[in-house]
Structures are given as C-alpha cells and as structure tokens.
C-alpha cells in the first residue's frame, strides 16, 4: 500500500496591509521594515491643536521649510525598525562589553602616558555633553519631523547618542577608579574651559533651531561629521604615540556606528536634495552654515589636543581643513554645494 501525502496550499486573502499594498502597487508580501514604516504616522483628523504651537497641527509638514511631495521617500537604507535596530545594536554592544573586559583585565589604560591621560580626560569626557545635545536634537527631530520613514530612525539615532555618552562615562570611571571625579571635572571643563565654549555655544544654539530639517543637517553633517572625525579619528591617532591603544578599543563603537549612520544620513539628504533645486539650495545653505560654524568652534580644542598654536598652519589646522574637505566631498556626492 502506498500512502499519498497531499499538501494543501491555502492562499492568504491578503499579503499585507491595505496602506502598504497601495504603496507597493500590488498586494504582495511586504518586508517588516515596510510594514512598520510606510504611512504609519497619522495624517488627518487630529482632535486638538497643540496649545504650545497653535499655528501647527500635531504632525505638520510646515514645521520645516523643506518641501517633499512624499515624505516617505526619505527611507532608511539600513531598513531599521524596532527589532532590526535592537538586534544590530545589541551585537555591537556585545563587542563593546568584550573590549571593556579585555582592556580592564590587562590594565591597558594604565599603559597610557600620564600627560596623555590628562589630555584624554580633557578632550574625550566632555564629549558626553556633546552626545547629550545630539540626543536632544535627534529626539526633537523625531518629535517635529513628518513621516515615520524619517522620525523612527531619528529616535534610534537619539538612542545611539545616549549609548555613546554611556560608553564615554564608563571610560571616565575606568580612568578615575570609579570615583566619578573625572566626570565632574569634565562637566566643569564643558561649562568653563575656554577651548570648549565655542562647541558648547554651537550645541546649545542647535538645541533651539525650530526647523527640524535644518536641525537634522546641522546635527548629522556638522556635529556628528566633524566632531566624531576629530575626536575619534584624529585625536585617537595622536594618542597612539602615547600608548592609547586600549582607548581605541573602547571607542571602536563610535567608528563602527559612524560608518553605518552616515549611510542613512547621506541617503536621506540625497533624496531630499534631489526633490527640487529649492530643497538642494536650502540644504546646502544649512550645511554650509553649520559645517563652518562647528569647524571654527572645534579649532581651539584641536589646537590644544594636537599641541600647536591655532591659525599657524600646524597639525590642528591641517586636521580641521582635511575634515572639512572630507565632508565637502560627501556633500558633493549627495548633491549639496558647501
């Protein structure tokens, strides 16, 4: 006797949500990213206007001067939604934990010269406050932005900055044997040391920018672009002569994060600039203003850490010029003129 195994195929009535199918053009299985992103934000029938800004609705395209015909064009090439984002970051954080354990076990931070230890405490730890500003800005973009395609990855980026601030705090605690003194000193430096005041002013001014797309350009291109390159590339390289290899392991997260973050940033700005010449001009203007501003603000810090006099064509001036050239090349690729 033979047994004939039959399979029955039940065709689902629909493969995805109606609003997603309308965007995809037909009813076919959509990815989780598409289902968690496309047209998720409400667009109509809000009950009350916000009391604090009665000229706008809760979600309002007029909160930026930028015009997009479809705000869901600003998609994330990494296709992050809650689960994929968390899985990716959990993996990255695992290597952070391993690196911290490795450095701790071998007392690698003690290999650093005493003078360089002081320099590190002076340039690296106050970056916590820069990261906090970045966290505020990305949160604000999520709040004021339009369309889940841009607001969801923005709040993820806000989380990233918070995580990076925590990494910096842990480095501080490793440097001062968990007394927290180095973090107190970093706060004092952030609030009062002359070489930090330009950056602090720029960060604080960016907090109150009301146009969220300007804020996005300022935060991602200028602050993340310039300060991360300066601190985690240039200063880190300068530290190698002083035995700071252990420190590089602890800030490796920032390098990995930046490579991935900039893929998203470049894609968003590229699509926004390609929408219309007005958009491109507007984004270019914001980019130029903020890149120049942050680069100028970073000069005193660069001069202090790289150990030369600002404006004399030394290592720090070269570093800032090269970083600006890097960012200008990126901007040219995505259609911005800076």
């Amino acid at each position, binding site marked *: 006797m033979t047994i004939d195994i039959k399979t029955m195929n039940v065709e689902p009535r629909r493969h995805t949500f109606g609003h997603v199918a309308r965007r995809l053009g037909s009813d076919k299985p959509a*990815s989780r990213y598409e289902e968690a992103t496309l047209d998720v934000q409400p667009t109509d029938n809000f009950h009350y206007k916000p009391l604090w800004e009665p000229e706008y609705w809760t979600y309002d395209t007029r909160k930026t001067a930028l015009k997009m015909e479809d705000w869901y064009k600003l998609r994330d090439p990494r296709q992050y939604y809650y689960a994929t984002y968390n899985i990716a970051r959990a993996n990255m954080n695992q290597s952070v934990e391993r690196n911290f354990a490795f450095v701790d076990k071998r007392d690698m931070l003690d290999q650093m010269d005493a003078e360089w230890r002081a320099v590190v405490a002076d340039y690296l730890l106050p970056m916590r406050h820069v990261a906090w500003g970045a966290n505020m800005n990305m949160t604000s973009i999520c709040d004021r932005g339009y369309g889940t395609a841009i607001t969801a990855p923005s709040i993820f980026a806000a989380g990233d900055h918070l995580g990076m601030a925590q990494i910096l705090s842990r480095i501080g605690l490793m440097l001062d044997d968990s007394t927290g003194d180095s973090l107190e000193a970093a706060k004092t430096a952030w609030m009062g040391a002359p070489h930090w005041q330009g950056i602090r002013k720029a960060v604080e001014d960016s907090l109150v920018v009301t146009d969220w797309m300007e804020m996005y350009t300022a935060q991602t291109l200028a602050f993340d672009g310039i300060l991360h390159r300066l601190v985690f590339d240039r200063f880190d390289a300068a530290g190698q002569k002083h035995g700071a290899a252990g420190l590089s392991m602890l800030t490796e997260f920032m390098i990995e994060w930046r490579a991935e973050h900039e893929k998203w940033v470049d894609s968003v700005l590229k699509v926004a600039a390609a929408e219309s010449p007005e958009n491109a001009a507007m984004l270019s203007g914001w980019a130029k203003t903020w890149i120049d501003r942050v680069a100028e603000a970073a000069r005193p810090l660069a001069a202090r850490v790289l150990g030369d006099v600002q404006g004399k064509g030394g290592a720090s001036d070269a570093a800032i010029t090269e970083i600006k050239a890097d960012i200008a090349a990126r901007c040219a690729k995505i259609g911005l003129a800076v």
Partner: protein
Amino acid sequence: MTQYASITLQNTDDARPIIEAILADNTDVQVLNMPGAVKLDRDHRIVVNRASVEERIGRSWDPQELHLVLISMAGNVDEDDDYFALEWKK
C-alpha cells in the same frame, strides 16, 4: 532533455529579498509556490548575485547566508564571494 537548475528556499522574511533578486537577475524562472517554500527552476543555470540581494536588504550580505534559508537545490554549485550559482556542467 533539458535539465533544470533549481533552488528551493523558505518563504520567509529573510528569504524573500533573495527570491526577488533571483527573479530579477534570471530570465524565465519558473516559480512554484508551496506551503512555506518557494521552488525556483530554470533551464541549465540559476544564479544569486550578492549585489542584487544587498540592494534589496540595505546591508552587506554574504552569499553563505543563503544556507540559512535553503531547503534544497539541484545543479553543480559554483560559489564565489559575489555570487552563488547552480549549473549543470556539460
């Protein structure tokens, strides 16, 4: 008699971009939808390109990851960093 090069993948979120990439890169693929699986047949040769899958999933992809969603295949395997091909060598 023509011989089909064939690959059967799970019908999951992870495999769907790969299936799409195969359909885009290979002409005249016969698609057989089964419960939970998709069988793709093509005369002689069928190829999965790394670049086309990466374009769809937005991250770097190693052709070896194919094995996580692979159910069955037919043909001689030709594996490289940039593609995974099944072909009946003459």
